[in-house]
């Protein structure tokens, strides 16, 4: 074949349903690709015969375990309703409290973080410091320009939880409107501070996580005081404190 051969990922799609795969013609006419598919099929067979039986119990146990937090497909309300509430209630959150003396400083464009939770009359935009059920479901909306976003939280026990994006080492540009997915709080009473961090240059998650751990390290009072994360100058931040009630 002279056409560019498909990637492994494309061949994985092919193997899910070879009969209806758009790659079928290419694979049949391309000896190297036929060989790749044959090898992948053999590896799949090895998985089914040996790997699956040896590992499935551990995987299913993990699926059954209660989780501290997780992303979930959440529909709070019809989109129109949410948009209307959002338009009325979007909060421009206060910036984090003043930096410590050794703080290197933050700059960058403005960022707003809005957090919603389901209410009796539809989504409710949460105010800074507002009490919420300890296992409340949350949705997020961020306004920021020309930057890549992480949303994370820290709690009084010093735990740092990444909320957006769910996977990957790098932040991603904030999509317009509400963010996909959401988060469920862990059900443990106490303060929980959410941060939205948006940086104009690639900002590794590890760097953000380290900064968050440093901010969370002082216990509940430190979380409530809203320490600014020590991040590079081009990282904008917004924060919101929630008080989780039993």
């Amino acid at each position: 074949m002279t056409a560019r051969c498909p990637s492994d990922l494309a061949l994985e799609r092919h193997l899910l349903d070879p009969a209806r795969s758009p790659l079928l013609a290419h694979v049949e006419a391309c000896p190297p690709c036929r060989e790749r598919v044959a090898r992948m099929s053999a590896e799949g067979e090895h998985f089914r015969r040996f790997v699956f039986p040896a590992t499935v119990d551990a995987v299913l146990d993990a699926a059954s375990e209660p989780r501290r937090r997780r992303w979930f497909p959440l529909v709070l309300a019809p989109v129109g309703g949410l948009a209307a509430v959002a338009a009325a209630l979007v909060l421009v959150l206060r910036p984090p409290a003043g930096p410590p003396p050794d703080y290197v400083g933050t700059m960058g464009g403005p960022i707003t973080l809005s957090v919603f939770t389901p209410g009796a009359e539809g989504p409710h935009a949460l105010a800074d410091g507002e009490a919420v059920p300890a296992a409340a479901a949350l949705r997020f909306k961020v306004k920021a320009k020309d930057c890549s976003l992480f949303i994370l939280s820290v709690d009084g026990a010093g735990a740092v939880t990444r909320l957006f994006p769910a996977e990957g080492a790098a932040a991603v540009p904030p999509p317009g409107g509400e963010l996909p997915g959401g988060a469920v709080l862990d059900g443990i009473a106490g303060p929980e501070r959410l941060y939205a961090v948006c940086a104009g240059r690639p900002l590794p998650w590890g760097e953000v996580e380290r900064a968050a751990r440093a901010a969370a390290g002082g216990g509940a009072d430190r979380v409530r005081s809203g320490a600014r994360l020590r991040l590079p100058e081009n990282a904008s931040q917004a924060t919101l404190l929630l008080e989780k009630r039993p």
Partner: protein
Amino acid sequence: MAGERERAAEAYRTYGPAVYRRCLRLLRDREAAKDAAQEVFVKLVRDLSRLEDPEVALPWLYRVATNHCLNQLRNAGRRGEEPIGELELSGGAGPSFADRHLATSVLARFDEGTQAVAVGVLVDGMGHEELAGVLGISRKTVERRLARFLEGARELIGVTP
């Protein structure tokens, strides 16, 4: 809960081979790939809903598996257990042999995002557009990270392009 276990088992049956193959491709060792596939799927089943649509699930599990295995390679390299240079690089058109050789030599020195791009292009032979979709980043970002990787790699080993 029983329903969730059944869904997880079905997802593992469907996508487990893809995760295992991905891990085998990167780790080059059946036993390590078996353990890695299990560990990756333990992560994946925490969000079963994302495994329902193959168009969503495959790029996602591919990314999670890639990151997991790259972490393993990086950690093993740090411990001096396993050279990362065992990766089998993509052939065909695209990066030159010299560029691909650079990949195996210095991959571990870069952050995860850059590694993912380098592996996607240089190991998997993925197009920039396809890789951008898998990683959830723009094509320009793919190109920028690849350029940064190649430039940094050359600097690291003192090679001029």
